[in-house]
C-alpha cells in the first residue's frame, strides 16, 4: 500500500521545513511511521521550499511522486505541485493571498483557509503562517491539536513565554476555522492508533552524530557544508555532557589535519563534509593512510562538480572517494542505506578505524542526510568499543610500524614514554624517514595487507532482499535502498542486492549472487554508473540494464516500478 503523502510548500524563510517536521512528529507520536523529504534552493530567504511527509501504518522508507494532500502557502506551490494531487486528495491554500487553484484532478477537495489573515488576527504575526497552516492541517486530518500545542511549547522553550502563547492562539484559531467552515470534508486520517511504539524522527545526519557520541567519539572538527552541517549542529551543544570537543576549523584541510593530530594524541576523531570539502581533505586522507592514523570521515554527497547543486542529492563521489589521493593506501569505505544503517555503521567505523589504523569513510548523500525517518530508538547493546593494538605503557624496543602478518602494528601515543615518529615520508619500523627499496616494499605491503585482513575479519556480505529466485535482480548501493524496497512491495519476482561495503569489496559474495541472477538491473543516482564501473572492475560483471538518475532528486519508488514493468514487457 502506498503511504499517505502530505506536501507543504511556500516561500523560504517561512518555516516550511519545521512545519513538515511537526506533521511527521505528530504522526509518529500518533502511532504512524513517516519519511519526509525536502526540496529547497541554496538560499535563506525568498526561494521556493517544499517538504513532503509520507505517512503510513507500517514503516515507510522513501518519498513518493504522488501527493495526497497539498498545503500551499504561496501561488508557486500551486503552480508546481497541484498536478501531483491524486483524485480523492486535497489541496489547502491561503485564501487571503489571492491564490487560484486550476487544473486539478477530479474529486480533489479544496480547502480555502485565510492562513495569512488568521496568522495576524489573533495577536500573531506573518511569521506564524506555518503555525496557522499546521492548525488547519491537523484539523482536516484529525490530528491532535493538543500535541501541536505541546510541541509549540517545546519548540519555543528558550524564548519569551508570549512567543509560544501567540503561536498556540494562532494554531487553535486555524484549527477552529477549519472545523467550522469545512466540517463536511474532514478526513480524520491521523486519529491516534491504539498501539503506539516509541519512535524517534531522525535524519541520517542526526543518526551519525548520535552514533558518534554512542561510540565514544572524543574529537570532531567539522567545517559547515550542506548537506552534513546538521551533524555539527547535533554535536556542538552536548560537548560537556558527553565529554568530547567539537571544533569549527578554518577550512576542511585543517579539519582533517586536526582530527589526525587528535587521533595521534590517542582520541577517537571524526570529520564530516560534502564532496567539495572532501576535495580539500584528499591531501590529509592519504596522510592518515601512510601515517596509519585512525580517523572517521563522513562524506555527504550532493550534486557536483564544484558548487554543483548544493542542496540536492547525488551519488557521484563513489569513485572519487575510492581513488582520491596520490598513490596507494588502505582505505575502508562504507555506504549505509538509511538512518538505521547510518547509526550502526558510524559506530562500526570508529572500531574499524582503530583496529586497522587507517581512514574509514562513510559515504552518505543529501537524500538520507536531510530526510527524517521515524524509527524505533537505536539498539546497540551488542556494541563494544574496540581500540585495536593500542600500547598505552612504555615498552622496550617499541616499533610503531613493526611489520606483522596482519599488517596491523602496535599503536602508541605521545606522553607514555615510547619514542616513535609518525611520518608522512616513507619510513622504517620506528618511523624515521627511510627510502631504501627493501623498506619501501616491506612498509607498502604491510599497510596494504590490512585490507586483506579486514576482508577476512570484518567485511560484510551484501544483503539480498526478497526471494532468492527472481526474474529481475536489482543491484544498488547507499540511499537508493529505501525506494527500491518500497518498489519491491509492488513487484512480483523481483529481488534486490544492497551493497554497503565499497572497499574492501565483497567480490566473491557478489559473484555467487550474480551468477544465479536472470536479469540484473543497476540503479544509482549519478551520470556514469559509478557503482557499475566498480562492479565491473571487481567482478567482471555487467548489468543487463541500468536506471541512472542525476537531476538532483532521489530515485522514487514509482520510477523503479515503471522500469521493472518495461523490463518485464520487453
Amino acid at each position: 500500500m502506498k503511504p499517505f503523502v502530505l506536501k507543504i510548500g511556500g516561500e523560504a524563510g517561512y518555516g516550511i521545513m519545521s512545519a513538515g517536521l511537526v506533521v511527521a512528529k505528530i504522526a509518529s507520536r500518533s502511532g504512524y511511521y513517516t519519511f519526509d523529504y525536502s526540496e529547497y534552493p541554496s538560499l535563506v530567504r525568498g526561494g521556493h521550499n517544499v517538504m513532503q511527509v509520507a505517512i503510513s501504518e507500517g514503516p515507510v522508507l522513501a518519498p513518493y511522486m504522488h501527493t495526497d494532500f497539498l498545503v500551499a502557502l504561496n501561488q508557486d506551490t500551486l503552480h508546481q505541485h497541484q498536478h501531483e494531487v491524486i483524485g480523492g486528495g486535497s489541496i489547502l491554500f491561503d485564501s487571503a493571498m489571492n491564490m487560484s487553484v486550476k487544473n486539478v484532478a477530479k474529486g480533489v477537495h479544496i480547502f480555502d483557509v485565510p492562513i495569512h489573515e488568521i496568522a495576524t488576527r489573533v495577536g500573531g504575526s506573518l511569521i506564524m503562517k506555518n503555525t496557522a497552516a499546521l492548525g488547519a492541517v491537523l484539523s482536516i486530518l484529525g490530528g491532535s491539536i493538543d500535541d501541536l500545542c505541546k510541541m509549540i511549547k517545546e519548540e519555543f522553550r528558550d524564548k519569551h513565554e508570549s512567543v509560544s502563547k501567540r503561536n498556540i492562539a494562532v494554531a487553535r484559531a486555524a484549527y477552529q476555522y477549519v472545523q467550522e467552515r469545512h466540517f463536511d470534508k474532514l478526513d480524520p486520517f491521523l486519529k491516534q492508533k491504539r498501539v503506539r511504539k516509541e519512535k524517534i524522527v531522525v535524519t541520517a545526519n542526526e543518526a551519525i552524530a548520535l552514533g558518534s557520541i554512542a561510540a565514544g567519539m572524543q574529537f570532531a572538527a567539522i567545517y559547515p557544508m550542506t548537506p552534513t552541517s546538521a551533524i555539527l549542529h547535533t554535536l556542538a551543544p552536548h560537548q560537556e555532557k558527553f565529554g568530547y570537543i567539537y571544533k569549527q576549523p578554518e577550512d576542511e584541510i585543517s579539519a582533517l589535519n586536526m582530527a589526525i593530530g587528535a587521533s595521534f594524541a590517542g582520541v577517537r576523531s571524526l570529520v564530516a563534509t560534502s564532496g567539495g570539502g572532501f576535495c580539500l581533505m584528499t591531501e590529509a586522507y592519504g596522510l592518515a593512510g601512510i601515517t596509519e592514523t585512525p580517523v572517521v570521515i563522513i562524506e555527504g554527497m550532493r550534486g557536483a562538480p564544484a558548487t554543483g547543486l548544493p542542496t540536492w542529492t547525488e551519488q557521484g563521489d563513489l569513485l572519487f572517494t575510492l581513488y582520491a589521493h596520490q598513490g596507494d593506501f588502505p582505505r575502508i569505505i562504507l555506504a549505509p542505506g538509511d538512518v538505521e544503517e547510518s547509526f550502526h555503521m558510524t559506530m562500526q567505523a570508529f572500531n574499524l578505524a582503530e583496529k586497522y589504523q587507517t581512514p574509514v569513510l562513510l559515504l552518505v548523500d543529501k537524500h538520507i542526510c536531510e530526510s527524517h525517518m521515524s524509527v524505533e530508538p537505536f539498539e546497540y547493546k551488542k556494541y563494544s568499543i574496540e581500540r585495536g593494538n593500542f600500547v598505552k605503557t612504555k615498552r622496550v624496543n617499541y616499533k610503531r610500524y613493526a611489520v606483522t602478518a596482519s599488517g596491523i602494528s602496535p599503536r602508541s601515543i605521545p606522553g607514555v614514554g615510547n619514542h616513535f615518529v609518525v611520518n608522512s615520508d616513507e619510513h622504517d619500523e620506528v618511523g624515521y624517514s627511510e627510502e631504501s627499496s627493501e623498506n619501501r616494499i616491506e612498509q607498502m605491503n604491510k599497510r596494504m595487507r590490512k585490507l586483506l585482513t579486514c576482508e577476512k575479519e570484518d567485511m560484510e556480505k551484501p544483503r539480498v532482499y526478497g526471494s532468492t529466485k527472481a526474474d529481475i535482480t536489482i543491484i544498488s548501493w547507499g540511499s537508493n535502498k529505501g525506494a527500491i524496497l518500497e518498489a519491491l512491495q509492488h513487484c512480483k519476482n523481483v529481488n534486490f542486492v544492497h551493497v554497503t561495503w565499497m572497499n574492501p569489496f565483497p567480490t566473491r559474495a557478489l559473484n555467487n549472487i550474480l551468477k544465479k541472477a536472470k536479469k540484473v538491473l543497476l540503479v544509482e543516482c549519478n551520470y556514469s554508473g559509478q557503482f557499475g564501473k566498480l562492479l565491473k572492475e571487481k567482478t567482471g560483471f555487467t548489468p543487463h540494464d541500468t536506471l541512472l538518475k542525476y537531476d538532483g532528486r532521489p530515485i522514487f519508488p514509482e520510477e523503479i516500478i515503471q522500469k521493472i514493468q518495461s523490463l518485464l514487457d520487453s
Partner: protein
Amino acid sequence: MSKKKLQPKQYLTGAALSTPKPCTWCPGCGDFGIWSAFRAACMQEKWDNKNTALVAGIGCHGHIINFVKITAFEGLHGRALPVASGLKMANHDLNVFVFTGDGDSLSEGGNHFIHAARRNQNLTVILHDNALYALTTGQASPRTPKGQVTKSTPGGNIDDPLHPLRLALSAGATFLAREYSGNVESLKEIIIEANKHEGFSVIQVMQPCVSFNKVYTHRFFQENIYKLPEDYDPTDTFSAYQKTFEWDYKKIPVGILYQEKRKSYEAQLPVISKKTLVKQPVKKKTITSLYKKFI
C-alpha cells in the same frame, strides 16, 4: 610531570636525545644552530617522551624529527599547525613544538598560521626562516626580498616579502620573538620562554641557507642584528608593532618582541578543564537523553 623519576645524569644527556640517523643538512646550514638550541633546551627543561611531542611540516626544517629522539609527527607541507592544534586539544599536558619553515607556514599553510594565532592555541612555533625554498633547490618564498634573483624569479622577485611577526601580531598571537640561528644560547632561552608562555608563540629564527641564499648569509645576520635593549617593554603592543617594521642595515631587532597575557584556546575548553581529553576514558555512551529532541 614525573619529576621524581628523573635522574638528570642518566637521562638528560645529549646521547639520550640522539637518534641513529645521520644529519642530512648541508654543512653550515642554519638548521644546525636551531637543532643545538632545541637539544640544549630539552636537556635543561627535561623535555622527553613523557611530556613532549614535536610536529613538523615539509622543508629542510622537517628533517629535525629524524635527529631528536622525541616523539614526532611529520605531516604535510603547510599543515603542521592544524595537526599540532588537534594534538594539543587532545592532550594539553604535552609541550608541543611546531617546526615549520617560511614557505611551509606562510605560503602553503598561511591560512592555518593566521587562525592558530587568532585562537591563541598554546603552541610554540619555531619558524625556520631562510627566505627561500631550499629543499626544492632555491625558489622564491614569501620571505624572499624584493628584487632577489632565484630559480623562480630570474628577473628579480617582484613580490614584496611577508613579515611573519607582524602578521602573527595582527592575527592575535601572544608571544613573538626573533633570533639568529647562530645565537644558540639566546635561542635556547627564547625557546624555553616561549614554551612557558600560555598561548600562541612564534619564534622567527633567521636561518641562513648556505647553498641557495647569497643575500641572507651568516655574515649578513651577524652584522645586522641587534639585541632589543633591556628597557624594551614587550607588553606594549604598539612598540612591538613598530619593531616589526625594522629590517634595515644594522637594524634587525632580535629577542622577545611581544608578550601578552591572554587565555589560550585550550584553557577555554570546558571539557578539558579538569583532565586532558586523552586521559578521559573512551566509553560507550547512553544517548537516551538526546532522544527528546527527536520525538
